[in-house]
């Protein structure tokens, strides 16, 4: 057995994160008197710092026993996830303080979940990928049901948990089949085995891929594996909804990209149509059902389902171009979505309201939030000046170049549908006058205002001059196709 490269230094950022977890939990435990919002700042700072540190691995191309790769792709997602988590930690501050118990564990779990996400992006081997996924999922299960005295939260948690377990069982079965074929769980070996292209185990391969798609489709909420999404999103604490709709989803795609490009690329034609079909169904159902929603979290759930549909296009016509287009779109989507959630959280913390109708008069009571909301929603709807337009355009164009014009057509059409319900939200925020006796200006904490502004700047950056980001992404995804 050849000499393994067991280089633990590769995981310094993760170790630091673990340290951060210990620190935060300890802080909460042994210094209960400190202001709880301090924890959120600490977590955010730690995550951001680690993100900075992990920049040191740029252009390092190495791996741990072939199990986990540290290349620009990993680095990109490390930074991406850590910064995202930092934003979420900051955004959670007031919410946790006022509505949740055990803040220390909350931030700890958040951080652990981030590690799981990174693992998903980094792993080049099925077992590791699966375990990272479970790490992310378990943390999410706990966090979703974190409002322990809130029936809705528990219910959401239970649904997410049971269905999650169920689908991961399916995923595992699929993995076992693939293992049976390849005799190994390394993506490279799998790819080699499939590449051999003997028809004896074609069916097993197909079944395996179907089940893998099922498991990961559940993770990223693709139709018909999406059913948990609206319920979990609605029940969970808002910040966690934010987490689910951004990082957890992105992690799913990071894994999908790595896995499908690394292991299944060779049999592209055998599975691309599955993804394409799922993508179409996802776009249509997600955006359609969103029309009927009245709870903002639920609406965002469906809208994110729709977004998943677009992103799956990138998987369906998998190639370097589509991959980078996909990651680009994912970035833009994540930033825009975070703006929306920052606004929702701020509004919820101040008014305790999360029904769309209760957004009325936001223009009067919190102009900045209203503005940011409008911008972000336009971005999600894919209108120009904002991130959504460019990224969507490029993603769809990429899909078209891979021969998926019809998918792009559905995508464009459904994004018009999405515009409808986004506009409905905007109508509440801008057109409707505030309800009786609720006209005074809200005092939005500076943290939230700052977040909204900074994220909006991000949205504009991606929307107006994405060359830099696009280059980075392109370079990162290049490592998937060596």
């Amino acid at each position, binding site marked *: 057995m050849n000499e393994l490269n067991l280089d633990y230094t590769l995981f310094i950022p993760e170790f630091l994160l673990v340290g951060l977890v210990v620190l935060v939990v300890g802080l909460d435990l042994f210094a209960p008197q400190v202001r709880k919002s301090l924890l959120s700042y600490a977590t955010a700072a730690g995550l951001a710092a680690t993100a900075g540190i992990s920049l040191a691995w740029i252009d390092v191309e190495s791996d741990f026993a072939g199990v986990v790769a540290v290349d620009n792709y990993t680095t990109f997602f490390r930074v991406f996830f850590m910064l995202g988590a930092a934003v979420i930690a900051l955004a959670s501050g007031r919410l946790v303080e006022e509505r949740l118990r055990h803040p220390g564990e909350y931030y700890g779990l958040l951080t652990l979940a981030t590690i799981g996400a990174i693992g998903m992006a980094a792993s080049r081997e099925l077992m590791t990928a699966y375990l990272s996924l479970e*790490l992310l999922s378990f943390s999410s299960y706990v966090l979703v049901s974190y409002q322990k005295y809130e029936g809705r939260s528990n219910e959401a948690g239970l649904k997410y948990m049971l269905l999650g377990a169920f689908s991961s069982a399916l995923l595992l079965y699929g993995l076992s089949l693939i293992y049976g074929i390849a005799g190994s769980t390394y993506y490279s070996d799998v790819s080699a085995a499939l590449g051999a292209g003997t028809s004896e185990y074609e069916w097993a391969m197909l079944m395996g891929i179907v089940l893998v798609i099922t498991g990961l489709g559940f993770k990223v909420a693709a139709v018909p594996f999406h059913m948990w999404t609206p319920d979990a999103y609605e029940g969970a604490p808002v910040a966690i909804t934010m987490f689910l709709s951004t990082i957890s989803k992105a992690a799913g795609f990071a894994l999908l990209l790595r896995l499908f490009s690394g292991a299944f690329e060779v049999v592209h034609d055998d599975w691309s149509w599955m993804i394409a079909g799922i993508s179409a169904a996802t776009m249509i159902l997600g955006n359609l059902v969103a029309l009927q929603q009245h709870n903002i979290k639920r609406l965002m759930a469906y809208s994110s389902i729709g977004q998943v549909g677009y992103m799956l296009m990138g998987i369906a016509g998998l190639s370097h171009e589509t991959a980078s287009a996909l990651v680009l779109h994912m970035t833009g989507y994540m930033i825009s979505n975070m703006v929306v959630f920052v606004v929702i959280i701020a509004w919820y913390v101040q008014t305790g309201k999360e029904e769309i109708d209760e957004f009325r008069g936001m223009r009067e009571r919190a102009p900045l939030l209203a503005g940011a909301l409008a911008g972000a929603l336009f971005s999600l709807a894919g209108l120009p000046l904002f991130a959504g337009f460019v990224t969507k355009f490029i993603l769809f164009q990429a899909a078209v170049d891979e021969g998926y014009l019809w998918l792009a057509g559905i995508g464009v059409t459904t994004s018009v549908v999405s515009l409808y319900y986004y506009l409905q939200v905007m109508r509440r925020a801008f057109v409707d006058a505030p309800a009786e006796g609720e006209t005074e200006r809200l005092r939005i904490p500076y943290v939230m205002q700052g977040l909204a502004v900074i994220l909006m700047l991000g949205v504009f950056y991606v929307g107006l001059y994405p060359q830099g980001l696009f280059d980075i992404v392109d370079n990162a995804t290049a490592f998937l196709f060596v």
Partner: protein
Amino acid sequence: MIDVFFYIFAATVIAGALGTVLVRSVVYAALFFIASLVGVAGVYILLSVEFLALVQVLLYAGAVTVLILFALTLTRVEELRQRVDGGQRAMAAVGALGLFGVLVAVMSQTEWPRDVNQLTTVPFASIGDAIFNRWAVPFEIASGVLLVALVGAIILAMQEEGEV
């Protein structure tokens, strides 16, 4: 000789499983569950991976089932059939059979590579060795998962002050 055992274990496993998903009383269901798990352990032995069998018996048949029994008693309510089983049994059957059909189709269609119908026993030691070298990362992640589960379970389940 071996295959006789195999069929016995298989029978246990399947019977136990069926019992688990069919019987009305949750407690009986749990007992059937244990039986099935033990059967699985037997299957491991046939596969000459005694280590797994061990873990199976200890972890599952031991800890897990106890946990489950506790949970069942804690959440016990009067058990009418339609409360235990959903209205969609028929659909469930169809779904499960459909899946089964698919899987069987796979099995029947597939010629497993490198399958020379002989099994290789794996020594404990080398497994442990592998876990701490090549598979260190997954191992650590798994420990992380367990930690999360632990902490989560505590946070969610613990009685807090001010709670009835």
